[in-house]
């Protein structure tokens, strides 16, 4: 997930980017979503036609746009971590800010999408497909918000000069979490919006 080129000097040392605790946390989050995705697959298998029918009501273009926003956001965060390894202070906070803005874009698009669905009277109790659509995207939505809170903290800290070539630990931890938010969407989008 985190494909940052290490400093030549660091090449020999295998090092976990970020804190071990954040990786436990990420693992737990991914397990939670994995159970959710499996439940979706299980429920869909029992009623493929209904799932296919209502899947067509989802706006795939907005979903694709959001995929683009999150991937771009992740790219900026990668650039921020690389900048930290180069000790390029200005670039760290700038790229974190861009990552944050991509998250904001995602939320905006999602709200537009939700407004259309809720406006049409769709709720958790409409049918099983919509139950999964709303639940999965909403839980993911909350994770984007948490990710943005983390990015905001990192942005503030980076402006105070907290990160650099020898001190990228916290930044890497936050970046890893942000990549997870991205990764989850990359599974969620095809699963719920696209796959027939």
């Amino acid at each position, binding site marked *: 997930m985190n494909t940052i080129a290490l400093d030549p000097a660091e090449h020999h040392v295998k090092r976990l980017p970020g804190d071990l*605790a954040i990786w436990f946390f990420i693992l*737990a989050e991914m397990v*939670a979503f994995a*159970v959710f995705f499996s*439940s979706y697959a299980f429920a869909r298998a029992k009623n493929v036609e209904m799932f296919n029918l209502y899947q067509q009501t989802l706006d795939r273009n907005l979903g694709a746009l959001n995929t683009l926003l999150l991937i771009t956001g992740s790219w900026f965060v990668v650039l921020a971590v690389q900048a930290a390894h180069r000790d390029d202070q200005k670039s760290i906070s700038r790229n974190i800010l861009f990552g944050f803005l991509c998250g904001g874009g995602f939320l905006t698009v999602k709200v537009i999408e939700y407004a259309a669905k809720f406006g049409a009277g769709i709720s958790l109790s409409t049918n099983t497909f919509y*139950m999964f659509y709303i*639940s999965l995207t909403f839980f993911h939505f909350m994770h984007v918000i948490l990710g943005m809170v983390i990015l905001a903290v990192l942005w503030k800290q980076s402006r105070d000069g907290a990160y650099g070539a020898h001190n990228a630990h916290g930044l890497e931890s936050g970046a890893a979490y942000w990549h997870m938010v991205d990764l989850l969407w990359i599974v969620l989008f095809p699963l719920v919006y696209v796959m027939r």
Partner: protein
Amino acid sequence: MQYKSQAVAKPYFIAAIGLFVGQILFGLIMGLQYVLGDFLFPAIPFNVARMVHTNLLIVWLLFGFMGGAYFLIPEESETELFSPKLALIMFWIFLVAGAATIVGYLAVPYATLAELTGNNIIETMGREFLEQPLPTKVGIVAVALVFLFNITMTVLKGKKTAISLVLLIGLWGLAVFYLFSFYNPANVVLDKFFWWWTVHLWVEGVWELILGSFLAFVLIKTTGVDREVIEKWLYVIVTLTLISGIIGTGHHYFWIGTPEYWQWWGSIFSALEPIPFFAMTVFAFNMVNRRRREHPNKAAVLWALGTGVMAFLGAGVWGFLHTLAPVNYYTHGTQITAAHGHMAFYGAYAMVNLMIISYAMPILRGRAANSNRSQVLEMWSFWLMTVSIVFITLFLTAAGILQVWLQRVSDTPLPFMVAQDKIALFYWMREWAGVAFLIGLIVYITSFFVSGEEKAS
């Protein structure tokens, strides 16, 4: 003892153990009533015995939590308790109120008790686990608030650590969620819905934070592993608990009249609830394996490891057994639930209290650890009680599986009481396992009175 004011924990621990004995005695009475329905009738009917058994459990655990907090917080905050006097006053109020409530349950019919205690002012009684009369409920809130004030002020004036922060969140959560016991809407669906906010969000939410912080504290003290490492684990455990436990409440919303999506939400999130308990087990063993010192209190370390394993088995594994909606459709309200309840409460909350008592009591009595003889006896009681609860759980699980089959799955389902008669053998075996548990408890209490060469503090 590092701080003089930690001494207020002692009466709390003693009361906790005393009430624990009461809980077990009433457990044995109702265990016998399962097979000899008339036993002690009409003096102590089954429903009263059950109420006393469960209420004593809650009250002794609360005594343990409060005692534990009074011991832990000054040491973590590196300062004396804000007001030891207040802590002692609250102890007596809580003890007298608790005892009066139990006497009330036993002395008069429940309906009369409700009339006598002003249940008509706010109707809060008659709901499982929250049966306490209004004055007791108000008393619990008052005691809890004063207690929270006392320890929060202590933390505020002293050092703030991750352990004391997590403990404070857990204890504040405990008080806040108890407030839902006052909310009793006429709509029975809403009633049940919010009833679980106390019951579930206690044991599968904020109490786990209390458990985690007690465990972390004792592990720091007994293993000498860096605080930084232990605190990181604590954060991970807390996060896992909250991710799974909060929406996991949904596993109680399958069949009470709530929307269908709760069957998915409840199943999915509660299926994850074993993970924080598993993390606690790994945490405890990992820290003990990496220990940098040999603490003389071997018994406390045994309880710490034990609570990790038994909480995982009882709360995690036995909870998972019947947490998925399609399974729960058959098992709801059977002996499977009772099996889970027994091992989970013992493994998670009885044992963590016994752990903090085991660690703190010798220190409160002026030594680092009890004599070897005393510790050996305490370890015997650990094994007697733990093995007994394993058997109680296994027998109840067997009874539950048979009950589900005879009463709900079979082509010719039997009425409830007929099915109960057919599984009586397992109730007898459970009762004997309960007797063994009581023996374990007697051995435990005896260990406090055994002298021998003590380890200096």
